[in-house]
């Protein structure tokens, strides 16, 4: 991918495997992408495509064992965070990069007040006194739309949507440069989803935060993201600006994803899914991992692994159709 002026995040040839008794789970296979300051990248794919593993890699929090970062670099502001020592990582997590987890029901410690859970991160990074950290925590609560008098309440006293607001407050408390939101609305009610999404969008705009939004909802991507990367079987199969990917879709898998969306304009009795299932990540097909499901399969797809091709400026596709 091309060299622009110092992107905030630059993932280079990242490969992450989980080594289990049942074999090696190839969760992330040789992915590369950049994220510029202030931009939002949508990372889209089915369950098991390696989105969350990629995110944990960027936090350098892949659970080890069984996870292992096999190769690659993750450059943040030009420094490889995979080579960070303990105290460098301590300053990186929470301050430079932070993350919102998928399920707000389990992301908050049930025995600690929400105020303390926000104040904790402020004391760690911004060296605030106890009293000051609570004042700032109260401000953060107000910022995400929770009355600050609830600062001493425990997580079980909040609804799911409010808990996710608290998690967002924690993640953004130290004003990180990079926010990773891992399906932040999947576990929420549909009515709450829109609220939480617009909250995230407003906050990152306000603070100029870069964001990776992990989702499997292509509609959400159009609302928030500048760029989109489509993941399949641990690889990015297509990446580019929203317009490029949505208007000039390159990869057959991406086309399949769009094709499977129900349309209001065309009345259909059945949805139009992509045939077949995602391959077993312990036993990926040879050649292109998508070939068993691909409608445009060519004989050489079975044997040759495609490389990333730039089909138009800033639009990358990993498919033999374009080689």
């Amino acid at each position, binding site marked *: 991918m091309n060299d622009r002026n110092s992107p905030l995040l630059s993932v280079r040839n990242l490969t992450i495997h989980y080594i289990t008794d049942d074999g090696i789970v190839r969760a992330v296979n040789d992915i590369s992408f950049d994220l510029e300051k202030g931009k939002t990248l949508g990372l889209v794919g089915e369950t098991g495509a390696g989105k969350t593993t990629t995110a944990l890699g960027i936090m350098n929090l892949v659970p080890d064992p069984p996870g292992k970062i096999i190769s690659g670099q993750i450059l943040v502001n030009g420094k490889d965070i995979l080579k960070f020592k303990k105290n460098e990582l301590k300053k990186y*997590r929470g301050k430079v990069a932070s993350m919102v*987890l998928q399920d707000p029901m*389990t992301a908050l*410690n049930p025995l600690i007040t929400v105020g303390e859970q926000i104040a904790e991160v402020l004391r*760690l990074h911004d060296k605030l006194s106890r009293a000051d950290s609570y004042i700032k925590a109260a401000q953060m609560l107000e910022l995400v739309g929770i009355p600050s008098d609830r600062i001493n309440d*425990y997580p079980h006293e909040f609804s799911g949507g409010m808990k996710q607001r608290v998690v967002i407050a924690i993640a953004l408390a130290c004003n990180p440069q990079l926010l990773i939101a891992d399906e932040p609305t999947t576990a929420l009610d549909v009515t709450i989803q829109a609220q939480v999404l617009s909250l995230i969008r407003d906050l990152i705009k306000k603070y100029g935060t870069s964001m990776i939004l992990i989702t499997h909802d292509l509609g959400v991507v159009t609302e928030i993201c500048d760029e989109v990367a489509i993941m399949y079987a641990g690889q990015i199969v297509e990446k580019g600006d929203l317009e490029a990917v949505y208007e000039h879709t390159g990869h057959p898998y991406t086309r399949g994803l769009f094709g499977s969306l129900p349309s209001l304009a065309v009345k259909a009795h059945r949805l139009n899914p992509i045939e077949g299932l995602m391959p077993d990540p312990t036993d990926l097909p040879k050649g292109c991992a998508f070939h068993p499901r691909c409608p445009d399969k060519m004989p050489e797809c079975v044997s040759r692994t495609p490389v990333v091709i730039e089909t138009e400026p800033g639009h990358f596709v990993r498919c033999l159709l374009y080689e």
Partner: protein
Amino acid sequence: MLNYIFKRILAAIPVLLGVTLLVFTMLYFTEGDPARLILGDTAAEEEVEALREELGLNESFISQYISYLGGVLKGDLGTDYITGRPVRDEIMERLGTTLKLAAASIIFSIVIAIPAGIISAVRQYSLIDIISMVIALLGNSMPNFWLALMLILFFSVYLGVLPASGLYGLKYYIMPVIGISAGAVATITRMTRSSMLEVIRQDYIRMARIKGQTEFAVIVKHALKNALIPVITVIGIQFTVAVGGAVVNEQVFAIPGLGKFLVDAIKARNYRVVQGGVLVLAIICSLVNLFIDLLYAFIDPRIKNQFRESGKLRSIRKAREEGL
């Protein structure tokens, strides 16, 4: 909260009544005549009969039970047939020893088992984990009294470094405490480990790491408190086991506590002592259970909520906030 404690104490009453009825019934139908035992084999039948009448042993089961219960409600556990002293006083003299021993054993278990469980969980499948799990398995598998006998054989008979019987100083506590707590150490270690393993896979632990928290703070501040909730249950159970286990261990180590007193009383058909002793043990178990339940509320705000008298604590908390 007070309301809850009151309710729990009320709920303990039927349990304790059941205990008295059960023990009373069992002893009533047990072979052996206390009057005969007191007077000895050589006593004349008329003397024995007179004593039976005096002790009220000739009355019906129901009236004997009711008169016993009447005494219990007034705090009178009856009279020791053999010494002629009030059972209550005799029990109170010995209860302290048993409780001290049980408390020492539980404290010892906690001090050893909780750190061992935490380390085992954090370093799962490491050498230290394997070693502590093997020791835990041994601790669970060995019968208490057998371990106690082995300890006496090795430390008292063979090495001659520790006293084999009695309870006259710190040194005397070592072997009984190890004997009583072996099982508790094993159980609490395993419980801490499994509970900790479950907790450290939770999202909020990942969240604590995302914040940039140190590994030590992640374990101590975020994981341990959550992991302790089930462990506390087990500690409570182990305390009651330790009190019950005193019956055997005090026998082995010849410690003059409630346990040994009870065993001796059973051998002598000393009914009132057995009934009183078991009742006191049952009361201790009920109190420990109540204490454990209150401890939950102290640790877990979700449980505390259930105890809360509506809005009262909340307004206190509000007031404290405004002062802040």
